[in-house]
């Protein structure tokens, strides 16, 4: 479904990714792990086209999307929830969802209701400006906004980072439910136990390269712990 081959990218002269390859197959949840600064967010940004790839390719459902704009990738069925529970702070929760719905190819209002079913906590907040929500609520809104486009692949960058524990559980459950319903996902996650619970397979990055990858069971190995230890 998503196939990344030899991807290279960076900021100006500073290269961050040195030939990253990974694969997400239909309905699978792949977790990208690694210490701070190894290039996880850069990898996701390059997969979505926020950063240009300097080499390598990104293929989605058999189509080479390496040179497409981010919004074109979204319309092909790639959903992205960036790091840091980002929203449009001055738009209401409803407008945050509407603006994404109107930009999606299907424009089907039932997608909005479906997204709110996944995050019912948002329902009483629809008229509030998104900037006044708590961090956890903003993260749920960010995920709901991505769901409104009815993605076939959902890319999540540290969805539980800096969020109060009670909402982490809800977000985790939502990820599990979406995964169980057959949605393919590419997830960046720092917490090993969370990754172990959710992922089918994992990719560990180190200094812009894939240091290790495999099925979730292998995550318990000693070598893996060495790569993740701070």
């Amino acid at each position, binding site marked *: 479904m998503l196939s990344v081959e030899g991807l290279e990218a960076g900021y100006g002269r500073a290269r961050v990714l040195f030939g990253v390859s990974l694969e997400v197959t239909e309905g699978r949840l792949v977790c990208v792990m690694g210490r701070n600064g190894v290039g996880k967010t850069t990898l996701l940004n390059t997969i979505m086209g926020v950063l240009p790839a300097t080499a390598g390719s990104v293929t989605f459902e058999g189509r080479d999307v390496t040179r497409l704009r981010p919004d074109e990738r979204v319309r092909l069925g790639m959903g992205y929830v960036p790091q840091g529970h980002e929203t449009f702070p*001055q738009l209401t929760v409803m407008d945050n969802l509407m*603006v994404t719905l109107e930009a999606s190819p299907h424009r089907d209002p039932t997608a909005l209701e479906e997204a709110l079913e996944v995050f019912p906590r948002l329902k009483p907040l629809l008229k509030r400006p*998104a900037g006044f929500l708590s961090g956890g609520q903003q993260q749920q809104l960010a995920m709901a906004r991505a769901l409104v486009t009815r993605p076939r692949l959902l890319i999540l960058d540290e969805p539980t980072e800096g969020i109060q524990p009670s909402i982490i559980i809800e977000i985790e459950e939502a990820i599990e439910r979406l995964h169980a319903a057959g949605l393919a996902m590419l997830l960046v996650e720092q917490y090993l136990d969370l990754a172990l619970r959710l992922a089918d397979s994992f990719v560990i990055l180190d200094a812009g390269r894939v240091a290790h990858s495999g099925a979730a069971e292998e995550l318990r190995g000693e070598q893996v712990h060495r790569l993740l230890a701070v």
Partner: protein
Amino acid sequence: MEGVLNQLPIGLSIGAVLLLIALGLTFTFGQMGVINMAHGEFIMAGAYTAYLLQSVGFLIALPAAFGVAGVMGLVLERLLIRHFYGRPLDTLLLTWGVSLVLQQAARDLFGAPNVQVVSPTWLRGGVGILPYNRLFIMALAVLSVVAIWAYLHRTGQGRRMRAVMQNRRLAATSGINTGRVDQVTFFIGSGLAGIAGVALTLIGPVGPTLGTYYIVDAFLVVVAGGLGQLKGAVLAALGLGLLNSYAEFWSDASLAKVIVFVAIIGFLQLRPQGLFVLRSRALS
């Protein structure tokens, strides 16, 4: 006392013109970070459109000027500015150059001397201290602000524009074609400058450098009102218009400019972010 009152419609109508100009600037600056020095020449283009169409009818000049200036803005954005996004200083120089080219083009087309647009008869006279032409300009600004507000808050395209203004990267990764939103913003913003140009023909002559008299004040409105803020632009434009005309009334034209600049500098010392600003937990 009557002199003091007479300044009121003058100040308000100048504020209204500044508002029309500043609306476009505040959106292109707030949304794209573009400091468009050629914006003043869209005013000039609108004014000359009214000059060319004065035999046809004054009211027809309004949509025509909107279209002419809007298309000029669109072409400028597509041909030049979009290649310089993220480089505000280069854009400033570039658009300043475009501004000079457009002024010279106007000189070649219409001649260097100012031309006069004859105001329609129904705008002559007035009620009390309120001349009809100044009232018309104020009404025009009110209508434009209402239309822009409705556009931003009641249409999908306006919602996309606000989204791009608040977080461009997030808008792109939410599926919004930010390039197209930028084009529409440029068209509308430049078109409003064209409307301002038509308004100016009611209170003065039209010349190739018409825009340069207003562009600096319009930028002051943008900075004092807060970037991309409709409310801020309205208050700052009226305040600046009134301050300008009263300072001129009690001193003279050049001293008035000094007073206005000192006032703006003092204000920005107190509120560097302008009257209104994006405020939320997300940004704090």
